[in-house]
């Protein structure tokens, strides 16, 4: 959900243990690295987790983040990618005011943007929007005049474009 265009994606492959998230967040906090989003998920390999971090920064800062991450014992691999070289998506749930008068307009807008309608309340409609951060941002701005009641978003997950994967260069 960042307004910034020059996002860097840091894809981290880590051993799957309960302390990894704590070690990473501790590192970011302690060193004052300003990350935008961080998401964690399992991978197809039971011992490995994938953490996707997005941040904006100079090359030297990003390099420093990468090198500091690589010092964590639990971390197997760190790939740094420009967001333009990734399929990078996030998901936002947006609860918009929708009275009897505006409901149709909201639904039309949702359709135009390819949103799913998840819930219709008496005075609100909950929409699910996915895509690149700028697409999601554009949609949020578009819906603002209707009145956004609340919102939840996931942060960005990203895969390198093409056939390459995060597992490349690993033994297995």
């Amino acid at each position, binding site marked *: 959900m960042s307004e910034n265009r020059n996002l860097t994606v840091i894809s981290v492959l880590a051993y799957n243990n309960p302390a990894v998230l704590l070690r990473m*967040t501790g590192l970011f906090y302690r060193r004052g690295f300003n990350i935008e989003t*961080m998401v964690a998920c399992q991978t197809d390999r039971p011992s490995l987790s994938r953490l996707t971090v997005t941040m904006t920064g100079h090359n030297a800062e990003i390099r420093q983040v990468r090198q500091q991450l690589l010092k964590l014992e639990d971390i197997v691999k760190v790939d740094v990618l420009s967001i333009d070289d990734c399929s990078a998506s996030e998901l936002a*749930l947006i609860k918009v005011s929708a009275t009897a008068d505006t409901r149709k307009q909201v639904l039309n807008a949702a359709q135009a943007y390819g949103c799913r309608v998840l819930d219709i309340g008496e005075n609100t409609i909950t929409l699910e929007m996915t895509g690149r951060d700028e697409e999601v941002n554009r949609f949020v701005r578009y819906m603002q005049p209707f009145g956004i009641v609340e919102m939840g978003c996931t942060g960005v997950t990203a*895969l390198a474009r093409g056939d390459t994967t995060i597992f490349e260069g690993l033994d297995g």
Partner: protein
Amino acid sequence: MSNHSDNRTVLSVLTYNRPSVLLRMTGLFYRRGYNIETLVVCETDREDLSRFTVTLSGDPDIIEQIRRQLLKLEDIVKVDVLHIDDCAASELLLIKVKAGNNRHDLLILSQAAGCRVVDIGDDSLTFELSGRSADVQAFIQRVRPYGILEMGCTGITALQRGDSTIFDSLI
């Protein structure tokens, strides 16, 4: 991204927007040995507040214990405990599948599941799918025989159904 049939609990946590909150929360979960499934963070419309969505399964007593522990953190404003069925809850999956000679099959399969194709490689297709965990899991199982090259998932974000919001009863 969970294999559980959805009997999960959603903790919607409203916090002050400070760099240490994520560290304090992950530290609490680690220290107390609470097993969470997903945790996502985002900003809210109010500049001073962030929203954390945590999903977990477990005994109601433990969940109540977690809620109380969270509320002891100075940065936390409010914790809503919700059953996942009472929420509009979605996650997003990016999945890169080996295409081989099955490009056509995969495209049909993905269309049926409501996926977007976000990238076409020489020998791979990357799909984006969003929705409830069960739908996401089902799709992963469907494409697994073709060869999953890699995937990334966001974890779950959830809003209460109907008109109520996390800001209710806040001033």
